[in-house]
C-alpha cells in the first residue's frame, strides 16, 4: 500500500469531521470546503503542514 503524504493524511482525517465537506490541494494552495459559516468561524487552523488554508462555505453536499 503506497504511503500517503502527511498533508493529505491530515486533510483526510479532517474530512471525517462533521461540517467538513471536502478539500483540494493544488500546488501550495489548500481549499477547505465547509458546510456553514458557523463551521468556518469555528475552525482554528489557518495552516496545515505548512500550507495556508483558504476556507470556502459550500453547504452540505447531497446526492440530488
Amino acid at each position, binding site marked *: 500500500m503506497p504511503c500517503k503524504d502527511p498533508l493529505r493524511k491530515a486533510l483526510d*482525517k479532517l*474530512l471525517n469531521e462533521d461540517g*467538513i*465537506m*471536502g478539500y483540494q490541494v493544488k500546488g501550495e494552495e489548500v481549499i477547505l470546503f465547509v458546510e456553514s459559516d458557523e463551521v468556518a468561524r469555528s475552525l482554528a487552523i489557518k495552516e496545515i503542514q505548512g500550507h495556508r488554508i483558504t476556507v470556502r462555505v459550500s*453547504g452540505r*453536499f447531497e*446526492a*440530488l
Partner: protein
Amino acid sequence: MDRTARFKTLAGGISIGSENITAGTLSGCFIDETDRTRVLVSNWHVFVGKPGETKILQPGPYDSGRAGDAVGILKRYVPVPPKEEFPWWRRLLCKLLGWLLEEWCTPSTEPAKVDCACATFDPVDKTRELVEGVYLDDGSIIHPKGSHPGDDIQGRRVWKSGRTTGVTTGTVVADTAKVKVWYGDRWIIFEDVIIVDGMARGGDSGSPTFLMKGSAPSEEDEFIGLLFAGSSTQFVVCKYKYIRQLLKVRWA
C-alpha cells in the same frame, strides 16, 4: 418547457429514473464502447437497480412515470466502494483501545470517482426516439459534439441542463477536489471531482455539464461530465475521463 413531461424525443436534460427511485435527469445518448450500441446514461443513484432487470422510466416515477413509460433496462453501473467493515473482535478492540490505535481503528475507504450507470434504449412505445444532444429551456435541442476530460478547468465557466432547474451556468471553483456526499443513509467519499459555484436542486442529478466557450450554451461547447450532487450554492460533477474509463461509454 416542462422537463418532467413524457417526451417522444429523448435527449439530455429531462426527467428519468429507475422504477426504484423518484426522478433524476437523463444525461443523454452515449455509445457503449463494449458493443457499439446507443445507451441512456445517468447517475447510478438515478438508475439504481439490478442490471438486466430494472426498468428505466421517462419521466421518472415521481413525475408520474409508469410501466408503459419504460424506455430501457439498466445495463450496468460503476460500483461505489463500500466503507471497510471490521470483524466483531476488531470493533471491540477499537472500542476499548481506539484512543491508542487510532490509525488501525479508522476504516479505510477507497474513494469513488464517478456516480454513473447506463441502460439499454428499448422503449415500450416504439415511436419514441433517442437523439444526441441536450434540451435547452426553450425546448430546442443542441448537440455539442466535443468532449473534454474535465482536468485543468478551474476558473472556467460551465453550464448544465437539468430536470429541476433547467439550464444554469456557473464557475469552476475546484477541479481536483475530494468531497464527501450524503446519500440519505451514508456518506460516500469522491476524489478528483469538479466543484462549481452554481445552482442545482433535487432531481438535477445526472445533468450533463459542458465547458462554455462563449457567453451562452452552444454546439461549440464541450461535454465534461455528470452533475451528481450539490448544496444550495454549489454542485459537484464527476469527470468524463473516468466515466469513459470506468463505465466504458462515450459522449455521442
